[in-house]
Each structure stands twice: as C-alpha cells, then as structure tokens.
C-alpha cells in the first residue's frame, strides 16, 4: 500500500522520460522542475490521480518547436560556430550535401558511370513495374469482382482438357434450377465482323451478343440509354462512345441503324462509356443475346449440350456467402448429371473460374502468364542489382583514393556515424539524379513497350500512388544497398594508416568482395544471354520447322457468309485466276488456336471411345491445298454435308488398330453424326508445338465454313492479290476484303513468346551494357593504381600485349567462375520453359559456348580498351614522381 502510494505520488515516468528526450538540453532541467513542482502542488490539492493527468496534459501543451529549438539564449552567438553534430541533424545534412556535390563534380567519370548504370536499371525497373501492375489490375474495377466467375468446361477424357466456353443451355439451367447466383449472363464473342452504317461506311469490329445481365454483372456504365432495359429488346445494340464517335462523329448515335454482317439490322439504344484499358472484354458493340439466333444459328442450338464453343461463355455473380468451392462441388456436377447420360456426364464437367484468373490462366486462353510477369520482375531485380554492384565496386575501389580525406576527417575528430552518413548522402544524390534521368528514359521508352505489347501503359507520377510508393522504396533500397557497404568500409579506416595513404587493399576488405560482385554480375549477364539464345532457338524452330503441311504461300480470307451458291462461285472464280493453284473452304486452317474436340464412336463398338477427337470441317480441296499426305485410302469426296471422315495416324493408333487400312470403309459416329472413314492423313501439327499431336478428323460440312485458303504463286503475288480482291468485292460488295498469310497465323501461337523474347533481348542488352560500364570503371581504377607498376614493367622491357594480359587474365578467370555458376542455373530455368513445348529443341553445348564467347568478347573489349590506354602511356610520366 505504502509502496503503491509512493509510486502514485511521482509524476508518470514515461512522460518524464519522453520530455527529457524531446526538450532541447537547455530547457530540460527547468521544464522538468516546473512540472514536478506543479505536480506536487496539484497532488496535494486535487489528489495524485488528477495531478498525473494534468501532468500529461501540461506536457502535451508544452510541445512546441520552441521546446526543442536549439538556439539557446546564452550561446546565442556562439551556436553558429559550435558544431554539435548530434543535436543538429539539418546542419549536418546540409554539410553532407555540400560535400557530396563537390565530390560528384570532382569525380565526373565515376559519377557518370554510376548514374548511367543506375538510370538504366531504374528505368527498366519502372517499366517492368508499370507493366506488371497493369496486368495485375485487369478487370479489378467491377463492383463485387470477387463474386464474379466464368463457368468453363473441363473435358475428362484420357486426359483433361479445358475450354472457356460452355454449352448454350447451361446458363439457363444454372439460372433456373439453382439458387446460387445473383446474376447469370451468357456472352458470345464474335471477332472481326463487318459492321456498316451505310454501304460506303463499313468497319471490321469485334462484336458480342450478351444477355441483359451482362450490364449488371460487369461495371461497364452507360452514358446514354437505360441500363435496366438495354440488351432486352431484339434488334437493338449498345456501342461505346469511341465507336459512336468513329461512326457518327458529333451526331447523336441513339436511334441510328447499324447493319451487322448483312444479316442483322439493329438500332442503337445506348452508348457505353469507353472501355478502360485494363479489361479483357474488348468488344465495343453489344447486341442482345436473343439476336444470336438470327446471326449465327450454329452457335445456339437450344438444347444441344454436346458442343462447346470457346467464344460462347457464361458469367455469374454468386450471392454473397456462397463459395465457389461449394458450387464446384455440388451444383455444377449436378448439372452434368441432370443433363447428360452417365458417360458424357463424366466427360463434360463444369467449373467456376474467378474473374481475377481470367487474364492469367494460360489453359483458359488467358492473355498473359503470371510466370512471364515473374520473369520480368526477376529481370528488373537483376538489373537493379547489377547497377548497385557497379556502385559498390567503384566505391570500394575509390575508397583507397579517398583514404586521405577520411584520415583528415578522423584526425579532426569525426566519428564513424557522420562519415557513414556522408557516404550515404553521396549515394543518395547520385541515385536521386539517376532516378530523375530514369523517369525521363521510361517516358521515352513507353511508346515502344506499348507498341511491342499492343497495350496502353501510362506513367503518371502525380496521380499514381503505387508508382510513387514503388519509386520511394526503390530509391531507399538502392541507396542503402549500394551505399551501406562502401560507407561502412570508409568509416572503418584507421586514421593513422589512412593518413599515410595505405589502408591496404586487404584491410579495405573490398577486393575479394569486389571479385565476388564482378562474378555475380557476369553470371547475371550470362544467364540472360543463355536464356535469350535458347528462347530464340526454340521460337525459330517452332516457326520454321516442318509442321506436316504447306504453310508458305497460302493466303487465308474470311468468308462473310456461307451460302452454298456463293461459295462455289467464289471457289470457281478464284481457281481461274492465274496465280492461284488451289482454293479451299474450311472452318479453321490446319494449325489454329481454335480446335474443337468431340466424342467418337467407331464401327460397331458398343461404347464411345475414351479419347476425344479434334474435328475440322473442310471441303475436298483442303488436302491438296495444304499438301497433306494421304497414307491410306483416299481424299474426301465433294459434299456439303457430313458423309465421310478422314482420320490422322494418331486417331487410328488411338483406336488401337493394327494397320491403317483397318479403318477404311468403316462407319464412325463423330460428334453424334454418322459417316464413313475413307482415308488416313499423315500426322501434322494442328496446334502449337506446346501441344502433342492428338487424334483429328476432317469432314465436309459446308455450313461451318468461315474461311477460304488459297494456294498462291509467290512470284507475282501483287497481281494475284488484286485479282482475289476483285472477285471478292463483286460477290461480297458489303464486306471488307482482308487477308492474312498462313505463316502469320502460325506466328500468332508464339506471339506472347515473341514479345517476351524481344523484351528479354532488350533487357539483356542493357544488363550487358551496365556490366561493361562497371568493368570499365573498375579497370580504370586498377590502371590508375598500377600506373607505377606498368611504368616499371615497361622500362624493364615489357611489351604492350603482356601488359594487356596483366589486366585481362584476372577478368577471364572471374568470367569463367561466373560461367560455372550461370550455366547450370540457366539450364535449369530454361528446361522449365522448354518443357511447356512438346516439340522442343535440346539446348546443346553450342549455345553455352556462344554465350561465354559473347561475354568474353564484350568484357575483353571493355577491359582491352581501357588497358590499352594504360599500356600505351609513357612510363616516364608514371615514374617521374619518384
């Protein structure tokens, strides 16, 4: 009790301590005394509890700059001359800054090397950050985006395959029978359709057919029109503001008519706000889903559960509290079981994909791979690291030159901390400069990056909080990472030794570390070089290897509609053109990203096969046009409906038949339609090299033909194309003539990889350049240090090459060590990448040898350039001082 009283009758300890810390020294005593006195007076008057409270209140009211201001009354004049480093950080900082600027302007080349390498590194980091942030922000602006899912299809055959689409009736089934979703909306995306305002004004656009729920699931606000009734009435259309401006200029678009593909006349009832850049829903024209029946009846067979089209998608917003896992576990399997027989119910399974995954999932046609983003992040990190390594290397090398300065400072009584901070300030000034330059560089480079990636990145320093935060953190990290170690080294110098100018290399501790860092730098460069070489080789192989069919000199035209009479007229007229060998109509070219797969039942076997077969529709000219070899039987006969099937070798193997001839003449039911197998094609790659060749069949079915392939003579391509256009425009006057080459089509498989490659190439170049800058600086310092040694050697008769070797041998050794580290790492990383390809190159020794030769060459060029200068110098100059 007594003890407690005693504690109570003291002012709060923490407050006293805090005040003692805050108050300037000359105020401390009187203030603490005043408060103490008041406390006791009040304690006796009102009781100690209240007194304690008042003490704290009094303390808070005391907090004012005057309390910690340093200008004391008695030392008013003297304070300018007395340098109290501890209690006046601002003055110290100003001094640091002044010295830093002097240092920087004295060592211009050193600063330049550091600033340039840091700027390049930081500029890349900024670009990479912007890119990664952009991709991570995809479709994150929808309200309740965490509850939005896409339903996708999993085909459980021999192995599981995925499709972004679902059968048309699924949406209705999910909406009607189950109580899990707030909204269910079907959307069919149709790329590149012709939309016309008048016969003269027509455009090719991506259009979409959507349920009215689309507007409530997603946050695409209307500028004009009523979101409640939009997409409800047939023959209406919503367009974005951008499209409205493009079509009608300043005219009011609402009420205007649009013609879609000649088959549909729709009236504009609303205008959508322009799409934000970070969405994968790029269609700018939305037509009610009910109109899809008129436009593409093949996509919407009402109760047809057996076809899945990747463009025919279904989105849901679940009710709050309902988890995707539970829907995946109960409702979606229940749908499969209700609407399919036992066996197909096993085969067709549906799952929910979160909206946040839509942009990234490579299996479900995501536009980006998170792995690529991670690769970029690593590259950015490496680049910054290389730049910092330069900094550390040059700084420690320079430390020897600065020893006298340190000695003098120490002898005059400077302690370690201010010396350390002095160095950090220098680093911060250079890093700050570099950051400004880097921002400029990033701004300049942005249009190129946007061009490569076909995206629309913006850098806005003033409004982008994330960017600002990133830059601040980056600056801090760079400053401390590259400044701390040299700072510590410098601050630790023994003043006596330092004054004598001999903080020996070993005592500086810098040399071995410097070697390590150079090795690291080389290793990073080599890693990137090997990566670049392997990616290049694989992509070249993928795009140039024989795919099993002819892909050069083939022009592909889209066909706006597939009326039989028009197709045959078009085919006949095309064939008559002089540069044309063959013309064929089909749904997809031999290699295509869009491959549908379906079930097959062979001969009299009682059950469907346990594998799925890819199906392509094409006329009898397909095989000769693409020069696909027939191994057994014959080509398809001309027909407009499904009568005959051509299988590939893999399909025959999958049917477990002994010889190719065994299938000939046998019936088969594919996709529920019976036909006869008439021949076997040689296997060809009908997907990218990432996928193995799977069973495939080819059949005639004219209503699904959407493209025309023409085998043209490359010798006079110009006139041939002109001829094609002429025939085309007479038959399809309201459509736009567009064409592409088959090999471009194949190039699209590897578009993402090609972008990746180009970016990695650029970054590799920068990494090598930055590394070389560092090397150059390092060799410069070595040369400066060894001036006398070189002088003596020369006087004693050493030749220039032998002096070059003096510098070179050390670096070659380091480079080889780096290679020993980088090669296995690169091999391991690239194996991971290559394994995504079923048909891939094996990285041979050649690539690794090439990588080391490149680095050797570049490094020796750098070293050689500088050391040549050193070896050429007149020895008299070097030796004169002694």
């Amino acid at each position, binding site marked *: 009790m007594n003890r407690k009283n005693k504690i109570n009758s003291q002012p709060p300890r923490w407050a006293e301590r805090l005040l003692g810390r805050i108050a300037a020294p000359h105020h401390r*005593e*009187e*203030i*603490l*005394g*005043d*408060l*103490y*006195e*008041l406390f*006791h007076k009040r304690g006796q008057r009102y009781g100690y509890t209240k007194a304690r409270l008042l003490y704290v*209140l*009094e303390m808070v*009211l*005391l*907090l*004012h700059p*005057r309390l910690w201001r340093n200008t004391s*009354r008695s030392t008013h004049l003297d304070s300018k001359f007395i340098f109290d480093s501890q209690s006046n950080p601002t003055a110290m900082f100003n001094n640091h800054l002044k010295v830093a600027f002097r240092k920087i302007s004295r060592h211009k080349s050193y600063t330049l090397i550091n600033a340039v390498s840091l700027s390049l590194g930081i500029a890349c980091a900024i670009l990479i950050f912007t890119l990664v942030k952009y991709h991570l922000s995809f479709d994150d602006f929808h309200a309740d985006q965490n509850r939005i899912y896409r339903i996708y299809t999993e085909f459980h055959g021999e192995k599981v395959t995925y499709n972004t689409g679902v059968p048309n009736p699924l949406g209705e089934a999910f909406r009607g029978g189950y109580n899990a979703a707030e909204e269910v909306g079907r959307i069919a995306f149709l790329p590149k359709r012709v939309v016309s305002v008048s016969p003269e004004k027509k455009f090719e656009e991506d259009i979409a057919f959507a349920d009215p729920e689309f507007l409530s699931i997603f946050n695409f606000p209307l500028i004009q029109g009523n979101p409640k009734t939009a997409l409800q009435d047939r023959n209406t259309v919503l367009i974005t503001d951008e499209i409205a401006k493009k079509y009608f200029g300043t005219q009011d678009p609402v009420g205007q008519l649009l013609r879609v593909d000649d088959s549909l006349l729709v009236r504009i009832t609303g205008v959508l706000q322009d799409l934000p850049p970070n969405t994968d829903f790029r269609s700018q024209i939305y037509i009610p889903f009910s109109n899809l029946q008129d436009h593409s009846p093949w996509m919407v067979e009402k109760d047809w559960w057996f076809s899945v089209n990747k463009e025919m998608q279904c989105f849901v917003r679940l009710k709050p509290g309902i988890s995707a896992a539970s829907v995946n576990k109960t409702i979606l399997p229940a749908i499969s079981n209700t609407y399919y027989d036992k066996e197909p119910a096993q085969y067709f399974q549906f799952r929910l994909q979160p909206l946040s995954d839509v942009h990234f999932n490579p299996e479900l046609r995501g536009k980006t791979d998170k792995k690529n983003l991670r690769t970029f992040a690593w590259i950015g990190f490496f680049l910054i690291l290389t730049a910092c390594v330069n900094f550390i290397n040059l700084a420690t090398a320079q430390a020897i030159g600065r020893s006298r300065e340190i000695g003098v400072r120490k002898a005059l009584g400077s302690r370690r901390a201010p010396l350390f901070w002095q160095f950090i300030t220098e680093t911060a000034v250079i890093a700050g400069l570099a950051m400004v330059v880097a921002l400029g560089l990033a701004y300049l480079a942005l249009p190129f990056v946007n061009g490569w990636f076909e995206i629309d990145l913006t850098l806005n320093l003033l409004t982008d909080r994330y960017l600002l935060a990133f830059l601040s953190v980056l600056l801090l990290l760079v400053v401390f990472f590259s400044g701390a170690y040299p700072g510590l080294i410098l601050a630790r110098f023994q003043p006596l030794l330092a004054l004598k100018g001999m903080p020996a290399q070993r005592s500086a501790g810098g040399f071995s570390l410097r070697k390590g860092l150079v090795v690291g730098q080389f290793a990073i460069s080599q890693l990137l070089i090997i990566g670049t070489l392997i990616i290049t080789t694989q992509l070249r192989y993928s795009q140039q290897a024989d795919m099993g069919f002819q892909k050069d000199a083939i022009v592909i035209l889209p066909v706006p509609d597939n009326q039989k009479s028009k197709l045959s007229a078009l085919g006949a007229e095309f064939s008559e053109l002089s540069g044309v060998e063959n013309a064929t109509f089909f749904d997809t070219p031999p290699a295509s990203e869009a491959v549908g797969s379906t079930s097959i039942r062979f001969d009299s076997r009682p059950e469907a096969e346990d594998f799925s077969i890819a199906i392509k529709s094409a006329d009898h000219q397909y095989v000769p046009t693409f020069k696909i070899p027939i191994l057994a039987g014959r080509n398809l006969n001309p027909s407009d409906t499904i009568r005959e099937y051509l299988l590939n070798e893999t399909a025959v193997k999958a049917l477990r038949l002994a010889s190719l001839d065994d299938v000939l003449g046998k019936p088969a039911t594919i996709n529920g339609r019976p036909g006869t197998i008439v021949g076997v094609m040689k296997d060809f790659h009908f997907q990218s090299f990432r996928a193995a060749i799977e069973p495939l069949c080819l059949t005639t079915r004219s209503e699904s033909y959407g493209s025309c392939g023409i085998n043209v003579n490359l010798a006079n391509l110009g006139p041939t194309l002109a001829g094609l256009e002429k025939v085309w425009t007479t038959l399809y006057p309201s459509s736009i003539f567009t064409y592409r080459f088959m090999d471009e089509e194949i190039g699209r498989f590897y578009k993402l990889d090609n972008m990746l490659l180009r970016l990695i190439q650029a970054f590799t170049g920068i990494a090598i350049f930055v590394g070389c800058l560092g090397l150059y600086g390092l060799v410069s310092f070595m040369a400066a240090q060894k001036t006398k040694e070189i002088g003596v050697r020369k006087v004693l008769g050493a030749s220039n090459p032998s002096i070059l070797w003096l510098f070179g041998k050390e670096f070659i050794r380091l480079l080889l060590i780096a290679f020993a580290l980088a090669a296995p790492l690169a091999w391991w990383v690239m194996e991971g990448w290559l394994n995504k390809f079923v048909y891939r190159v094996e990285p041979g020794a050649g690539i690794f040898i090439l990588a080391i030769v490149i680095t050797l060459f570049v490094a020796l060029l750098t070293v050689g350039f500088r050391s040549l200068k050193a070896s050429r110098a007149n020895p008299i100059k070097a030796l004169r001082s002694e």
Partner: protein
Amino acid sequence: MKGTQLGEFEEIVLLTIALCYDEAYSVAVMEELSQRLERPMSLGAVHRAMQRLEEKGLVQSRLGEATAERGGRRKRLFTVTMAGEQSLREARRIRNELWEGIPKTAFGI
C-alpha cells in the same frame, strides 16, 4: 531581426515578471496569472511567452538554486531588463493617451 512589438499576452506576462520581482519563474508567473485573470493557464503558454520575451531582450534569466520540491532541479528566474521596462512604459503611455483621447460621449448612455 524580429520586431520588438509587445503582444498583449506578452505584456501581461512581462508585468507579472516585474510584479514577482526576484521570484519570477514560470510556475510562479503562471499561478499569479491564473489567479488574476481568473482562468486556467497552461505552463506551455507561459513558458513560450517568457522565451519570446527573452529572445526580444525584454527579460533576462539565470538559473536559481536546486530545491527538493522541484525534484532537485533548478528553476529559471527572470528579471525585466532596461529594454523591457522601456517597452512596458511605452505601452502604458499609449494606453493612457488612448484613454484620455476617448470622447466623453463614447461610453455615454
């Protein structure tokens, strides 16, 4: 150089310092003031005012003896300087002149 204008609160504090003569330190001044003005006063306000006065050269300070009631800490004692006295007189003169200048009818009815 900051103006040596005397603020209203500063004037009162300065007067109080003069009043307390040899015993003028912040707690004493604060207590005197809160008694006379009949409102609570914070130590901080007084402390700052006294510092300002010292910066303007109107008061000077010295450290007194350490006493037990202050937990063994010394107090800072203030005395009014010549300049301080002068500015107090000046302020008084201005006030007197103003009072005398007020026409009789101003507070009339």
